[in-house]
């Protein structure tokens, strides 16, 4: 039995310690916004924040998380920058199929939390781990810049 702190709430889960956080969220806690895409940290669709850092939840065994705070796409809107990023994503109409976008938003929010005014190079470095098969990168970049502007306003 593990006790996880997710989006500010405590959850007890009875799962094997090697189960990746991704599957705990999806199958055991019904938090399905975090997506499975590759299982080997290549696509970024499963990105969550652990103590504020963007992490690929497919590579995070639940037994090693301990008391660290987990934030998922379902909870990021409760943070100031998360809400701004979600709004920017809608205003720029970023999603096509939308499957990668939860991970993109989690990576982008983590970027803006650390660097409220990111350069293009900062965006490239922070977002390089998130695949978008539909090719929405131009609008992702636009949305991040618009969010940065909104944060500084």
């Amino acid at each position, binding site marked *: 039995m593990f006790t996880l702190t997710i989006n500010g709430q405590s959850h007890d889960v009875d799962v094997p310690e090697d189960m990746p956080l991704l599957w705990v969220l999806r*199958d055991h806690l019904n938090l*399905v916004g975090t997506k499975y895409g590759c299982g080997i940290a290549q696509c970024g669709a499963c990105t969550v924040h652990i103590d504020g850092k963007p992490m690929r939840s497919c590579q995070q065994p639940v037994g090693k998380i301990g008391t660290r705070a987990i934030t998922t796409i379902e909870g990021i809107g409760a943070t100031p920058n998360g809400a701004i990023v979600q709004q920017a994503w809608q205003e720029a*109409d970023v999603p096509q199929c939308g*499957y990668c976008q939860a991970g993109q938003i989690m990576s982008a929010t983590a970027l803006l939390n650390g660097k409220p005014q990111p350069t293009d190079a900062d965006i490239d470095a922070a977002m390089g781990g998130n695949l978008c*098969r539909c090719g929405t990168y131009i609008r992702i970049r636009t949305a991040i810049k618009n969010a940065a502007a909104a944060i500084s306003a």
Partner: protein
Amino acid sequence: MTDIQSNFAQSDAYLSALIDEVRSVPAASGGSPMLRRRTFFKLAGGGAAGLVLGFHLGNQAFAAAATSDSAGGDEVMNAFIRIAPDNTITIYSKCPEIGQGIKTSFGVIIAEELDADWNHVVMEQADINPKVYGSQGAGGSTSIPRAWDQLRQAGAGARAMLVAAAAQQWQVDPAGITAKDSVLTHAASGRSASYGELAAAAAKQPVPDPKSLKLKARADYRLIGKRFHGVDNPKVVTGQPLFGIDVQRPGMVYASFTKCPAAGGKVSSFNADEIKAQPGVLDAFAIDGTGVMVEAMPGVAIIAKDTWSAFQARKKLKVNWDLSEASTDSSSQFSAQAQKIAASFPAQADQNVGDVDKSFAAAAKTVESYYEYPFAVHAQLEPMNTTAHWHDGVMELWVPTQQPDRGLPLIGKVAGIPPEKVVMHQTRVGGGFGRRLVNDYACEAAAIAMKVNAPVKLQWSREDDFAHDFYRPAGYHQFKGAVDKDGRLDAWQEHFITFTADGKKESTGANLTDNLRYSIKAPNIRRAKTMFPLRIPTGSWRAPGDNAQVFAAQSFMHELSVAAGRDHVEFLLEAVNRDVPELAPKDPTKVNFSPARASDVIKMCAEKAGWGQKLPSGSGLGLAWCYSHAGHVAQAIEISVDAKKRIKVARIVVVLDVGPIIDMTGSEAQAQGASTDALSTAMGLKVDVEKGEIQQQNFNAYPILRMPLAPMTIDSYFIQSDNPPTGMGEPAFPALAPALGNAIFAATGERVRKLPLKDLGYSLTS
């Protein structure tokens, strides 16, 4: 023929026929026979206060059945529009949302004719009932052209009933009533009422004959052509359940399904006892399936209490595969063999126009070149999945598919039940790209669910997705072309080396497309093909055929214009406008290749890209065009290339004529996305096949373009001609790769004739 071979041919024939039909674009006017047969029917019952309008294809008996169903509270399944007393208008999108934006566009089309207030429209996914909705598929960029008349009539029909209700209440001539933003107004008497107020009375009005409805002229559009936000975006950005993979049912269990890595292998035995003893595993069993790849192939199902347990147990799975009839295909052998035979033009030609030999003999210049491109996987980001529940004699499924209605009979067959006992719910689809024209994963889920006394979610791994795709076929083209003394394209000879599943015709997606057959307008043409037998399944991959064939053809076209010493744009314009009677459209009522539309996009693309300007040394501008999926498209790319073959993309220009645009924001997204996808695919994507097994297994071996190297600027322009609207999902893909190749030539003098360009030492740089 053995069973497996016969099944393989059957599977390929099914998919070929499906794609032929999916790709066929309806007539330019008058509608298809299906549309002409359509009549309205009204759905009674339900909430009573609202207006619910549906369609049916066929006889009144079905309408009665639908009405009676609706009395059971199920009326929304059969309707496009529902108007609530509070003015909320719910519109049902009948086709799958796969990222192409159809759920938004379909709503806009209906709301336009309904004169609805878009701010109070709620879009919902319709359930699957082809008897009510007609075709519910998404493929071939035909959702818009196929549904265009039907959706407009749905909106106009509901509007007419609202007007009739108001006219009756107000005792006025309906002709004096105007509609705007869900409000009807009779100016003469100063009366007005909202749709919500009128909905109950409107529902009692007779349903109009669709042919009696006057649809709007383009000049009167208030919504069509404007910018819209994707209707599901608020849910997408907050992580709410939308996709197939997100489905949760009470008591649900989870399945993985392991098939033979070499296509066509069967299960001899597996370590069932060991697997059943793994943590979290509930059951494990072999499934024979039907042996047809578009249905269910043999494999081992592991049922577990969660996905991870199923995946972990699978690591212990040991299957003895019967490989006696499995594929032994090798892509490296195909490639070597194709190159060897390319120069021997087959005795039997498929297409013969004019006299190619005479042209070659008299030509000012001839050019011979050999092009090749590899197999590719779709790699849509949501891995295949389906949740299936066999209960009460019904197979109920939640499926992220592009062809839901076509899945019904196949699922019924696999489950051994009549198709009417299959109930399918369409989910949002995490990427289509043609992969989900096939319902194999839904069939597998049904086969598994028959043996599981609970709802079961079948989840493919990413590795499953790579190993069991319906691949974009590789292809090899040997060209010989001629230009005459005036520098004009005069002859085009093409030996296309491709694949066959049945030994008679090309495998699915492996035929030379009609688009190319009719839009390369040389006065002398000779084409022939050689087909290698192929035992891995091929399918429809974004802009099937065109996605790679246009690279070969339009790169070679540039070789010819260079050989002729001509300006490429002038050469292209001259070529597309050449009068070659043998290439004239066979059916002029259809949307066809149009020299005028092609010329317009080429000219505008050249202008927008700055064609003819002097670029610095090491830089180059390439331009290519195509007619694909009823769209006329030209693409240009400006690049610079350094000594290490690193390509920096300055900008991409896309010009399309797909008729009137429905949603400008969504259309620009498709133009950008398809161009980015095409750049990604041309630069780095391929899969190899050895001993019938796909060698690449995950994204670490399949370098889809990422943010740091993605183009920063893609400018899209639309020539909104007065043709019927056609789809945006595919046309902006094919011409990008040849434009890139032509730009590399312009920058470096090196001609690229093989994809992906990574294999020739090229890479992208930021």
